């Protein structure tokens, strides 16, 4: 049976080269990286090398990389760590209405615990502007968090410009780069970014490993207290294999980016063009400032989950911002923030491309989808031919 995975924004397979780099650290070089004997030193060496590699690839210093267990943990650490660490300076936080729940829910929790949060609205393409950020900044603003690119609709935010605005104010700037790491060029030596989150499993590394870049001089309260790991910023015996895997994955992603990004952008545009031919279909997000692998559309009159189930039966893995697939009762907060109605937001479909996808896959999807959409519309009480 045909099996086409088009949900690379959700997660990616571990590349064989990555798994190979990880293997020695499970059962052979298994030492605790904090131990001073040879097993420990060899594990620590693996950790150091991984840290150097990652730092080098994003224009950071090794000591500015704090390893975490996920993008979510990194984002939580950025928001809560900054909030708790800077409470004496102010209690106002700015973020956007289209952040991933890791940022959004951290902000909401802080709001419940004595902080004030401004959630900036976005335009119909999902963008915030540096001016909006400038206008929202107050003397007591301690942190601004704006994602690099949106995981649902693929819209890229002007983080360089926003960073400059935030820097002027003296607040910290966090960006959630979970969707862009390894895909877009990120050079932290040239960007006014204090905190940056990313997650290995989004770029063909293992699940359960993430990192937070913490610019030198920035003080956060830890999220996980305990041992002296990660320069006392994040306790817990280090996941050496996972971290080594993340470094290898990022190295490969960056090395292949120049070839892979244009390839995948072409496939993406081909897919978008094809989907547009289905009537009553709208493309979500910016067409110009867009992740190279993201296709997000809404089909009117139908609901996302039933669409996904039908796609799955034809071997296509995709995702939707439909309420039914998010474990909540509301459809995607991102699509709603962009001004879509509930009804239309329920009919969203996200296809995110990856290394294994080919032109054949695009053709297959474009062949199957119109039929599925048609079938579901025929069944829909909202559809009036």
């Amino acid at each position, binding site marked *: 049976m045909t099996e086409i995975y088009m949900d690379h924004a959700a997660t990616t397979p571990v590349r064989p080269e990555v798994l190979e780099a990880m293997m020695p650290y499970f059962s052979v070089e298994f030492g605790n990286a904090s131990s001073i004997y040879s097993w420990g030193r060899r594990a620590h060496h693996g950790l150091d090398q991984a840290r150097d590699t990652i730092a080098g690839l994003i224009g950071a210093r090794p000591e500015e990389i704090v390893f975490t267990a996920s993008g979510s943990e990194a984002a939580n650490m950025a928001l809560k760590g900054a909030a708790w660490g800077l409470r004496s300076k102010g209690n106002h936080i700015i973020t956007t209405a289209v952040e991933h729940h890791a940022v959004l829910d951290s902000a909401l929790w802080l709001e419940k615990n004595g902080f004030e949060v401004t959630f900036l609205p976005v335009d119909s393409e999902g963008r915030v502007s540096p001016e909006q950020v400038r206008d929202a900044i107050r003397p007591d603003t301690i942190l601004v968090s704006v994602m690099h690119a949106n995981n649902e609709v693929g819209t890229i935010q002007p983080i360089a410009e926003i960073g400059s605005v935030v820097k002027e104010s003296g607040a910290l700037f966090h960006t959630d780069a979970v969707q862009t790491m390894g895909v877009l060029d990120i050079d932290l030596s040239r960007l006014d970014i204090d905190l940056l989150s990313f997650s290995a499993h989004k770029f063909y590394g293992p699940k359960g490993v993430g990192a937070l870049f913490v610019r030198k001089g920035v003080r956060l309260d830890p999220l996980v207290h305990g041992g002296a790991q990660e320069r006392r910023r994040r306790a817990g015996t280090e996941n050496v294999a996972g971290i080594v895997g993340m470094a290898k994955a990022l190295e490969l992603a960056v090395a292949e980016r120049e070839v892979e990004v244009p390839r995948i952008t072409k496939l993406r545009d081909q897919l978008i063009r094809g989907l547009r031919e289905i009537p009553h279909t709208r493309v979500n997000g910016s067409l110009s400032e867009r992740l190279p692998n993201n296709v997000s559309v809404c089909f009117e009159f139908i609901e996302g989950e039933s669409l996904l189930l039908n796609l799955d039966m034809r071997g296509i893995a995709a995702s939707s911002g439909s309420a*039914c697939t998010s474990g909540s009762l509301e459809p995607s907060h991102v699509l709603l923030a962009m001004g879509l109605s*509930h009804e239309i937001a*329920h009919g969203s479909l996200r296809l995110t491309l990856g290394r294994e996808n080919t032109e054949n896959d695009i053709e297959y999807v474009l062949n199957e989808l119109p039929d599925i959409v048609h079938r579901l519309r025929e*069944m*829909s009480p909202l559809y009036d031919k």
Partner: protein
Amino acid sequence: MYSEKVMDHFTNPRNVGELPDADGVGEVGNARCGDIMKLWIKVEDGRISDVKFKTFGCGAAIATSSIVTELAKGKTLDEAEQISNRAVAEALDGLPPIKMHCSNLAADALREAIADYRKKHNME
């Protein structure tokens, strides 16, 4: 996630469509929450002789709509009114907990259609 029975009714929904000359029509849900079910019944001799549905919604919503039409067909109005959402879920070998409240509205739609029939025929 879904039982085989659910997937069967989702993949091959029974009685999809409209009944232009329906004796009663029921509609429940709204687009906001992502599920709308519309159900048409024909009544003969106090029994449901035909029933059709259209549904905008997730897999569970489509499957419950489908099975409720099967459960209802041939039943008297009084019997059909007794079909509970719980019975619908059971007939499908269960639904994921999260779907129990939000997408299990088909029995409600059926009751609405019966009520509509009764109203039209002054049987309330």
